């Protein structure tokens, strides 16, 4: 593109000048030379040189040479400088560079303007430093970045650079728009029914290969169970399937498994790998992402509900911006909060971009199979993704609020229906209160007016008392020097809290009471015994409108006013607290003397008691006065009416309308932030400002956020992105997901690099099949269960894994899928299966994560060994692995031994390693030995005294097939020799055999 652009700008004068220098045409193209040179090119293209070329040389060439020597149509002097071959082949004047004697290179002579007939660039000599640069480059052998090479017309499309938008990249299989694909015609009756089979079979036929025969039913059901639910079938289930002669026997198995809740636990975990799910932030404190387990439950639920994949995307990326948003969709946006986060970064602004970058990388690879993150510091070196594309995509996320600790990222997710009902109830309550008050007020006014007249000594002359709003009748210890209380450490008589109780024998001391150092305390009088009783008198001139108790207790306390117990407190506080006690006190308040009495009890640690009483004397407590003088002023009938209304009001007021707010860790936007292209990825080097846009290889229309998209503070941008991703208008989303479904059924994707569909990724082994499958996914309303079934019902899926000599020789990697590949169970499958086989597995679903038993040696690797890991009950410890707490700085040791997913980056394919430390885990860890014991106990209980039956059962449980007599004999022989030669008792010998059964290759591998 740039070449054409320059060509247009090329001036006529320049053309003429160039023609002058290259008047005669000499063509030096020797076949052997070309070949030799291309070999050299490969050798010279090492990273450092390419880097040098990219950063230093390319800009100079592009700026000064490409105009004339890079045009596709016409080349000045027939010289092409846009690729290395062009330099070496040279133009009319000969080769531009001389590899053996670089200093003699024609190009260097020309740019140095030493020969006045050959001065390049013709208009103006290059600055000296650029000449030096090019000289150095030529001396290095003129290394060129193949990705930047531009070839002329004569060259095939497949030589065009892959990191620009051109004919080559727009027609690349991955970026090409979705088109209808028709399955090839196949002559074999068994292999033409399913589209999948037709594709696979025809490729095999082309290669002269035959597909394997079907796997046995025993193998097939085990494969199906693990693939869909991550657990093995029971003996009964295996037997039933083998005996089921109906044509839809396997279909029934698939339907049953897809309907099982275990399915979401297995497939949800595949998704959690992709989004790098973890429950801590990493770094120094590795602080917890509280409530993020709700995202995990959301994912499991989504798979179990067969939520359409496009909706699944919408919810995770924009669940808070959707018109039909609900608790689920908001929880889904926890997606944005899953990554690492440095709570104490050295460079805050850079850290902010790192956070967003992590989101973009994960989004790009997970949903699009594109390594967009590679274009952060410069244009992508391989794929047609520019730096501008990167920052345009990044600006979809720029308004996301910064991550934070604790509940900072918590968003309420209460059900909207509940919320509406709550709001209605609140309105009702207010209306009822208002109506009652309307009837009460005339009565109260009448009463107050009458009272003021009849009882002037109450100082109600104006009808309402005018006192201080906040007055301390009993100051707490923090006020002044505290106040004096009567107190005793010994058990007083039962009536100790009555007003009239004689406390003259009690001790006297200033508040507060306790042992120094108790948090939040102000100790003036020491108290070290277990109990203390306190009394304090005070006076009211008028009855106050409101009473507030201020108290600090360590530990249990009972508070009395005028003989009535008004409050009890359990446990201890670390500071004072204030409680409104007006309602509790109203019926016992009196003018004149009042008595506050407290009993406090403590069991250990610090201890403290103190209380204060704050009153509001600016209002009149009509009910209190009415209770005393109502009959006298209003008459009994009116008083009864008043009391009835009063009671009704109290009842209405006391109905508590609380909407329990549920929270989830989710996304929020807090401000509109601009985005720029950051040169070299550095926030200090801001370049052109950009707005949100999709990668230009996939879409060229600008992004507009419709007016009705913003929701609250959320801009609506992410909804636009999510809609584009899930609309099917980009071809990547469906392909990438169809490939993942294939991957987890066959152990590898049709594209093996399932997070990278770009030019550096793997090519699909069956591109048409992948497109066909992607179309099926979309056509089926993006429902995944349907595609699972489509895949599993094919002959391709049901093939055996056995080797064929011919096929192995021709296609050892099974690229053509002539057999089903064996696979080792995943970390979760191994652990869950062990629990399952031993009868310990607890299938409880959801909720906060659980903690397995982690060996002390592993805890010792944490910087706070004591606080590194939690503790769960045995029942909880036996739950499925997907519920184990995911801590970034301390991965669960059993899972990590078996190649668990890295939690810092999106993980599309897990490694499968075989190392001796795994073996140590399977032989010696507490978990395995506990499990062997449980298994032995289970077997002994089922068939007491029958060792043969026990051995048979152990083998059958672990391999899902009936063992041969020889296999059973081998087990019995081991038990016998352990007993005979090493004097092991029978139970322990059986445990050892069970340990063996849990170590079998056949247990850990699927055919």
């Amino acid at each position: 593109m740039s070449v054409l652009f320059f060509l247009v700008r090329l001036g006529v004068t320049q053309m003429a000048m160039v023609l002058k220098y290259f008047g005669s045409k000499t063509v030096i193209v020797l076949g052997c030379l070309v070949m030799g040179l291309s070999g050299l090119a490969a050798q010279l293209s090492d990273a450092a040189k390419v880097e040098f070329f990219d950063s230093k040389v390319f800009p100079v060439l592009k700026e000064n040479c490409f105009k004339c020597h890079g045009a596709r149509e016409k080349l000045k002097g027939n010289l092409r400088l846009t690729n290395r071959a062009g330099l070496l082949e040279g133009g009319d004047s000969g080769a531009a560079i001389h590899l053996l004697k670089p200093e003699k290179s024609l190009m260097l002579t020309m740019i140095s303007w030493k020969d006045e007939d050959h001065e390049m660039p013709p208009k103006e000599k290059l600055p000296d430093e650029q000449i030096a640069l090019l000289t150095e480059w030529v001396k290095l052998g003129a290394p060129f970045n193949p990705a930047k090479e531009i070839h002329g017309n004569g060259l095939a499309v497949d030589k065009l650079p892959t990191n620009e938008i051109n004919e080559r990249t727009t027609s690349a299989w991955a970026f090409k728009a979705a088109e209808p694909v028709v399955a090839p015609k196949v002559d074999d009756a068994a292999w033409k029914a399913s589209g999948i089979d037709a594709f696979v079979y025809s490729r095999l036929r082309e290669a002269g290969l035959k597909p394997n025969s079907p796997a046995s039913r025993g193998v097939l059901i085990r494969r199906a169970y693990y693939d869909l639910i991550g657990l093995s079938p029971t003996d009964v289930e295996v037997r039933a399937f083998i005996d089921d002669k109906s044509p839809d026997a396997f279909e029934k198995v698939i339907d049953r498994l897809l309907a099982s809740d275990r399915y979401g636990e297995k497939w949800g975990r595949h998704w959690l790998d992709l989004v790098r799910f973890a429950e801590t932030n990493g770094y120094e404190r590795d602080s917890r992402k509280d409530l993020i387990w709700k995202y995990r439950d959301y994912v499991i639920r989504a798979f179990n509900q067969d939520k359409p994949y496009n909706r699944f995307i919408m919810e995770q990326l924009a669940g808070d911006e959707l018109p039909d948003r609900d608790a689920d969709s908001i929880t889904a946006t926890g997606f944005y909060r899953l990554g690492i986060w440095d709570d104490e970064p050295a460079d805050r602004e850079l850290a902010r971009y790192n956070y967003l970058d992590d989101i973009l990388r994960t989004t790009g690879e997970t949903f699009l199979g594109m390594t967009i993150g590679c274009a952060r510091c410069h244009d992508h070196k391989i794929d047609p993704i520019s730096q501008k594309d990167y920052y345009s995509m990044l600006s979809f996320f720029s308004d996301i609020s910064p991550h934070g600790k604790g509940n900072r990222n918590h968003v309420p997710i209460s059900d909207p229906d509940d919320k509406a009902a709550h709001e209605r109830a609140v309105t009702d309550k207010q209306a009822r209160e208002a109506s009652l008050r309307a009837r009460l007020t005339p009565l109260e006014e009448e009463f107050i007016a009458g009272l003021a007249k009849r009882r002037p000594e109450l100082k109600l002359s104006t009808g309402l008392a005018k006192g201080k709003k906040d007055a301390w009748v009993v100051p707490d210890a923090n006020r002044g020097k505290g106040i004096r209380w009567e107190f005793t450490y010994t058990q007083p008589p039962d009536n100790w809290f009555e007003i009239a109780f004689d406390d003259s024998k009690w001790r006297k001391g200033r508040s507060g009471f306790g042992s120094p150092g108790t948090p939040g305390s102000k100790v003036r009088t020491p108290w070290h015994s277990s109990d203390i009783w306190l009394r304090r008198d005070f006076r009211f001139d008028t009855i106050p409108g409101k009473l507030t108790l201020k108290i600090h207790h360590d530990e249990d306390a009972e508070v009395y006013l005028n003989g009535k117990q008004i409050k009890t407190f359990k446990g201890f506080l670390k500071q004072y607290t204030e409680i409104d006690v007006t309602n509790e006190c109203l019926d016992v308040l009196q003018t004149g003397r009042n008595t506050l009495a407290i009993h406090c009890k403590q069991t250990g640690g610090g201890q403290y008691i103190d209380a204060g009483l704050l009153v509001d004397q600016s209002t009149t407590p009509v009910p209190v006065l009415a209770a005393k003088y109502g009959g006298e002023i209003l008459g009994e009938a009116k008083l009864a009416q008043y009391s009835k209304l009063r009671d009704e009001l109290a009842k209405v007021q006391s109905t508590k309308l609380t909407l329990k707010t549920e929270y989830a860790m989710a996304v929020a936007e807090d401000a509109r932030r601009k985005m720029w292209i950051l040169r070299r990825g550095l926030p200090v080097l801001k370049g052109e400002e950009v707005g949100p846009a999709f990668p230009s290889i996939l879409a060229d229309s600008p992004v507009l956020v419709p007016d009705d998209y913003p929701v609250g503070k959320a801009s609506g941008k992410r909804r636009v992105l999510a809609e584009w991703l899930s609309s099917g208008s980009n071809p990547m989303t469906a392909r990438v997901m169809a490939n993942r479904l294939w991957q987890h059924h066959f152990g590898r994707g049709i594209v093996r690099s399932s997070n990278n569909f770009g030019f550096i990724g793997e090519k699909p082994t069956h591109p048409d099949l992948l497109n066909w499958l992607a179309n099926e996914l979309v056509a089926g309303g993006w429902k995944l269960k349907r595609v699972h079934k489509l895949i599993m019902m094919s002959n391709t899926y049901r093939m055996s894994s056995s080797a064929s000599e011919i096929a192995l020789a021709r296609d050892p990697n099974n690229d053509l899928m002539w057999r089903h590949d064996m696979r080792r169970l995943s970390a979760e499958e191994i652990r869950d299966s062990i629990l399952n086989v031993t009868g310990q597995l607890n299938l409880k679903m959801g909720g906060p994560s659980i903690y397995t038993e982690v060996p002390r040696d592993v805890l010792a690797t944490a910087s706070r060994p004591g606080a590194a890991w939690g503790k769960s009950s045995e029942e909880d410890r036996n739950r499925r692995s997907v519920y184990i707490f995911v801590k970034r700085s301390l991965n669960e040791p059993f899972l990590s031994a078996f190649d668990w997913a890295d939690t810092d980056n999106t993980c599309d394919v897990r490694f499968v390693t075989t190392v001796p430390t795994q073996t140590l885990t399977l032989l010696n860890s507490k978990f395995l030995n506990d499990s062997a014991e449980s298994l032995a106990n289970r077997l002994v209980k089922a068939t007491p005294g029958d060792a043969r039956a026990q051995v048979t059962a152990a083998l059958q449980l672990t391999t899902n097939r009936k063992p041969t007599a020889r296999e059973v004999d081998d087990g019995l022989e081991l038990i016998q020799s352990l007993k005979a030669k090493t004097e092991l008792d029978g139970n322990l010998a059986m445990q050892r055999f069970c340990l063996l059964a849990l170590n079998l290759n056949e247990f850990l591998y699927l055919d």
Partner: protein
Amino acid sequence: MNNMNDKPRNTFCGRTSRREFLHQVGGGFTSLALTGMMARDGFIRNQAMAADGNTPWANPLAQKNPPLPAKAKNVIFLFMYGGPSHMDTFEYKPELYPLDGKTIDVKTFGRGGKKNKGRVVGPKWQFKQYGQCGKYVSDLFPNLAQHVDKISFLHSMTADSPIHGSAMLMMNSGSVLSGRPSMGSWVNYGLGSVNENLPGYVVMLDRTGGPISGAKNWTSGYMPAAYQGVVMNASGSTPILDLKNARNMTREQQRMLIDKLNKYNNRHLSERVDNSALAARISSYELAYNMQMSAPEAVDFDSEPEHVKKLYGFDNDRTQDFGRKCLLARRLVERGVRYIQIYSGGNHNDANWDAHGDLEKNHNYHAGNTDKPIAGLLEDLKQRGMLDETLIIWGGEFGRQPTAEYAKGTGRDHNSYGFTMWMAGGGIKGGVSVGKTDELGSAAVEKPFHVKHLHATVLKQLGFDPNELSYFYRGLDQRLVGVEGAEPIHEIIA
């Protein structure tokens, strides 16, 4: 796996064999850490094959020769976690003493944020000259100081972060971002393991716990877990997790169990001979069985003479613990372990070199625990002729500020603008000091080096071009020294 073997077909820049790698990944990459070993033992012939089906399998942990001549074969990284103060240890700052207590203008950036002035804390120890080179060393290291002629001091180290979490990741993996492989993993990946009965990359932790971020410091990041560090315990009864048989299983019983298991597994294998992963698993039981012998043997110091133990400080409660780790390191090097990292300090606060409060108390304690053992290690390696091939690295994730952190006390905050590390052995010059910080010690002013340069130096000594040793991940050739590359510190290379 290893992209040092050029494979021109379908390669980017004619250099990497990423396509091969992707095959392995996408194919459910079975790393078969053992296949190479087994192939060597004739256990499986010609069955082991790369996932592309053409090339013979390269066991990721099989011993590999570095592409360039190597000066060092092993690395021992003595990690002074928490950040030792350079001006109180190895970088003599005479001008700083008289300024003690004075408030001066100086730019600092630490845990307490960015500041423009602060109260100077003069160095709390005296410096004396040692060795032929006349190197000034503080009184904190009277024993180590005897070896300055074997050491190259780097006084102008800089790092990207003055905060423990990210700085630890940077020193161990070259990036402040979590998720990258640690240096030991790179070495494991590049060189494999000489001794199949021991891990190739060993980490020893402080008694008080691991460093901040725990296992992230020895993770293999995006590489297979086969390359990650294995935690070894130099004084416990189980040197490696789950090494000991459980439930009183005797060696004899275990042998019987494994023999019988092999019988089952071989029967299973006989119908699946093309699957080398199954064979690898069978073999892994023998290796585990051997490791159960080898690892305790390495930790059994009984065969070491008393004078050697004394050299490492076994006779003193203070130095015994670190001494055991240093001696184990030497014994592991003798047994072919490539990369060993020993932590001085663990947990938080003063349990490591993070002297925010009382500098004297903190550094006296940690230096006192490690001075003798480290000197012993250098001495012992030298005597045995092993120092030439063993690269020793000493240092923390950053240094400390010349000024006090709080209004009172001698505590210094973190400093990543300038700090000291040193290297010895493995083709590193002796008696050399390179670079320096300003007269206060607040920032590197002469020849500043970044952590990347240190990493480049280590790789260079091990026989790699640090800018070539790469691993394809996420569309990029990732390197320990970063995609922009870094030069080794030539000034200290002999």
